[in-house]
């Protein structure tokens, strides 16, 4: 019975979240941008809300060209708090524990913990209300029918990139709850650049919060690092950005040490992150250092492309799950303030 009540509460929260956006749709339609039918946005909202609000446990498989990884995962939402645990399966032991905004990364063999305050969408209140709309501005919503994933019936949708500056994605959402079961990043010819999917998942489990809370209490003997991240603005650092690639908005800007240990000799970079609602691009700026930096470098790992180049006396690193051309446009958009 408790379960049923809890279900009802969770469903109404999701419904409320969707209903809250109704006035937003009216607002969106008066703007110059085209707006998409409410059911498309509702589908995406339900996708996001399911990941936030549902209790589930399962096994995730991720793959790019180079490797396949497996993870045991758990996600709980209880009394308005979000808990998550991710354990690497095979290879080096690695665990991630999350309680709301705080994320612990643990390496048991090295007895090392890193704690970071995760940047939540709450810091950018203007975005969540229309992030689904922003996705639909840059990607076309194409339903592709139904398929089974991990024993669950799922709706398949392709978010087809509207231009060549981003990659399409194919998503499988569990039919009853909207929980994302599988996501493929697709290249320009429709080839899979990366995919990740549940190989098995139980949705609607009883929350086992001790999986997270108990583990957080077992950190005796661990070195605990808190990577220093200092929020800032490009403007205050003497930079400006002109003519960003369409669809991308800045969602984060901070200075951070590249070395997680944060030693005094570690390089400090300025990192600005841009998102189109579905994917994001990081731009790193730091003084040019001939010992570490050379001439232009391009690279790719799976869907992630990297571009590094010298700009005046600075070294730019641009990376993201986007084509190289997009990274070039980002690097060209950055310039010193006059």
């Amino acid at each position, binding site marked *: 019975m408790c379960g049923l009540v809890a279900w009802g509460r969770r469903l109404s929260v999701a419904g409320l979240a969707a209903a809250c956006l109704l006035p937003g749709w009216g607002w969106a339609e008066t703007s110059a941008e085209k707006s998409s039918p409410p059911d498309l946005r509702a589908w995406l909202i339900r996708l996001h809300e399911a990941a*936030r609000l549902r209790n589930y446990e399962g096994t995730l498989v991720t793959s790019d060209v180079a490797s396949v990884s497996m993870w045991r995962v758990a996600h709980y939402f209880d009394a308005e708090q979000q808990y998550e645990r991710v354990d690497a399966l095979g290879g080096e032991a690695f665990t991630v524990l999350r309680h709301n905004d705080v994320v612990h990364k643990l390496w048991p063999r090295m007895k090392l913990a890193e704690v970071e305050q995760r940047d939540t969408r709450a810091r950018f209140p203007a975005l969540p209300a229309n992030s689904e709309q922003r996705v639909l501005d840059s990607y076309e919503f194409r339903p592709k029918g139904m398929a089974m994933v991990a*024993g669950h019936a799922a709706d398949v949708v392709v978010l087809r990139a509207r231009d060549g500056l981003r990659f399409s994605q194919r998503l499988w959402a569990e039919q009853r709850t909207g929980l994302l079961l599988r996501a493929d990043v697709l290249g320009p010819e429709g080839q899979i650049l990366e995919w990740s999917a549940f190989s098995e998942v139980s949705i609607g489990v009883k929350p086992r919060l001790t999986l997270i809370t108990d583990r957080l209490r077992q950190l005796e003997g661990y070195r605990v690092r808190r990577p220093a991240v200092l929020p800032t603005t490009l403007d205050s650092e003497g930079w400006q950005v002109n003519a960003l690639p369409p669809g991308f908005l800045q969602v984060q800007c901070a200075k951070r040490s590249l070395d997680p240990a944060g030693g005094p000799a570690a390089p400090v970079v300025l990192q600005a992150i841009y998102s189109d609602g579905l994917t994001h691009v990081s731009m*790193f700026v730091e003084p040019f250092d001939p010992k570490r930096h050379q*001439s232009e470098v391009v690279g790719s790992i799976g869907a992630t492309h990297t571009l590094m180049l010298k700009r005046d006396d600075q070294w730019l690193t641009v*990376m993201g799950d986007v084509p190289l051309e997009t990274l070039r446009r980002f690097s060209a958009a950055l310039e010193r303030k006059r």
Partner: protein
Amino acid sequence: MTPSADEPGDPRAQALSALCDGEADRAEADRCFEAWRDDPAARARWHSYQWIGDAMRSEDLASPSQHDQDFLMALRARLAEEPVVLAPARLEPMAMPAGLSMPQSAAAGARRGRWATPAAVAAGFVVVAGALVVMRQGAPEPNTDAPQLVRLDPADVRNAPSLSGPVLAASGPGGGMLRNPELDRYLDAHRQFSQGPALASPGGVRQVAVTPEGR
């Protein structure tokens, strides 16, 4: 078994030759196998016959050894001029899940975590460079019993890309390579931003796939 003789008229040599051509009868074949097992010279002869057969069937393999070495040197020079693209070697075929009903065999075949990727970036170069080193020589010398390797000039080995550890930055126009641990740090900082509300999600789990190297 009598010690082997090397003359072409030697009946064992003829039997070996017949075996190579698929014309040996059962008894001849057995004698060849015994010779192969017991006699290094027979193994060397077998190897030579295989080589001769390949060279006869393919013009590419019949070129003099210097041809291969010249090609290697020219290729390495051309590669050095190319802008560097970091792309990991395909370590195993990417599973295309259809319906994704993950059988146990897939679980058994899963590799270690995402931190295999940075190593794979280096490995991509190691594999390429390694593949360039091991090649056939020309006509094999008799009485040797090992696969032939290209003899590289020591100077070439020194100038070749490092085959172990992080690849060092190479100077020159058009491109350089970055040390891998550095790239990992940028990747970590990039991946810590997650679009969706959950890490335990197909989209979000990549955020946690960071490397412990350098920690």
